[in-house]
């Protein structure tokens, strides 16, 4: 049994699941729009928290946030449930599928058998949609995979109840109700406002452009402070956080720029359209940073030093700050 569900690949799993689910219910919003309206662009540097022995550097808000924001902004009614009983979590999924409801769920990545081996690590905030069952296999729309995939009953149960940080606890969610009229304009403005707030207006050194600036200072001292081997590992960690599936530094800047393009048409703002290209430039700078960081991490013969990386990050924080400041100005003039 397979629900007629259109699987589209995306740059980021949560956007992708949201966009795919909405399209199923006749609301055609792109991944970029989901990302922008849900204010998915973010940065935080939390040196006091460690992930796999590295300081936490997040290029995204907490998992689940984008979906929650979108459903609230568009007025969707979402059913969400976590389970303690594994069998029940599976039975209720089966019942859902029988009713023809494509069901989103949070899963751990490590035991996703269809994943490329190098991407299989213990990370518990991946999103997929299950939209069918054939024999013992579930039909899975995983936004980072090109094709529709399959997972056996045992595998799906295992990933839904993965252990470790932020256990998914069988969490599943689906759309219960969708309003007849959807006000995209309002949601866009709300998304833009929140983006400016989260990246530009949060006081303290660790969030948004301030966080990028803070990291730019700290990274210069990493080799002295931690030694060459650890410093390299940390730099590699930034690049992985930045460019790996489910996160994104440069990629997210391009995605946000794509959102600015689409949004500029809907809210009819030439300024916003022009600003999109500024954001593209920021994305290009993040890419150059990744190239330099990658060289250092691999220990290639290179002119770049940790100071170079610091300079690049400082420059990024300034140009990204400029984009947010401009968005703020555009929003102000719109209110008049």
């Amino acid at each position: 049994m397979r629900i007629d569900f259109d699987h589209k690949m995306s740059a980021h799993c949560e956007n992708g699941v949201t966009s795919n689910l909405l399209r199923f219910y006749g609301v055609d919003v792109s991944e970029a729009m989901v990302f922008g309206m849900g204010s998915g662009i973010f940065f935080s540097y939390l040196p006091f928290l460690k992930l796999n022995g590295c300081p936490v550097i997040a290029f995204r808000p907490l998992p689940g946030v984008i979906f929650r924001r979108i459903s609230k902004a568009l007025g969707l009614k979402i059913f969400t449930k976590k389970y303690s009983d594994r069998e029940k979590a599976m039975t209720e999924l089966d019942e859902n599928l029988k009713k023809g409801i494509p069901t989103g769920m949070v899963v751990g990545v490590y035991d996703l058998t269809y994943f490329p081996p190098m991407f299989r690590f213990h990370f518990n905030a991946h999103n997929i949609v299950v939209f069918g069952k054939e024999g013992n296999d579930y039909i899975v729309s995983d936004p980072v995979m090109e094709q529709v995939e399959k997972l056996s009953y045992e595998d799906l149960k295992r990933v839904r109840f993965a252990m470790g940080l932020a256990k998914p606890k069988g969490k599943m969610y689906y759309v219960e109700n969708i309003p007849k009229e959807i006000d995209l304009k309002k949601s866009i403005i709300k998304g833009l406002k929140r983006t400016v707030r989260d990246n530009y207006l949060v006081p303290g050194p660790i969030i948004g452009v301030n966080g990028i600036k803070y990291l730019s200072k700290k990274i210069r001292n990493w080799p002295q402070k931690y030694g060459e081997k650890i410093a390299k590992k940390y730099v590699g960690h930034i690049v992985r956080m930045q460019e790996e599936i489910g996160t994104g530094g440069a990629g997210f800047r391009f995605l946000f720029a794509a959102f600015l393009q689409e949004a500029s048409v809907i809210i009819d703002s030439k300024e916003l359209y022009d600003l999109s290209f500024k954001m593209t430039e920021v994305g290009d700078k993040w890419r150059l940073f990744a190239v330099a960081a990658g060289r250092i991490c691999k220990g290639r013969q290179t002119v770049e030093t940790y100071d170079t990386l610091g300079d690049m990050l400082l420059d990024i924080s300034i140009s990204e700050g400029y984009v947010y400041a401009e968005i703020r100005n555009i929003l102000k003039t719109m209110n008049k």
Partner: protein
Amino acid sequence: MKVNQVPQDDANIFDGKTQDVQYALDENGKYTIVKSVGWQPKNDAISHAWELEQEKIEEARALVVAGKKSPIYYHMFKNLMDVKLLASYTGFFVFTVKRHFKPNVFNELSEKKLQRYVEAFRMKHIDDLYNIE
């Protein structure tokens, strides 16, 4: 980034299973989706992390072969776990798992307890626990 700048550096990171989605500007300055087989800095970062894990696995294997640690110590690294994660998958306390790393303690474990490791490592049979190849 323009469409023709989207990197296509293939290092078989995706094992032929999927590709990356990139957003890039087409010739009209409009954003469009381009698929990519990889990008060197990303390939490097991911394969570097992978190599670090492989090193840890080899170190663990050596300790088991030398008789200093029990096989589950190796399987823990092989499954990219740490003690805490292995403890939550088996339901043992962290200090119990650590005790089980001692070969003499491990050799005395009941079948029932070994079975919990078999399930945590997703093996078929208890004998697989002793296989460290």
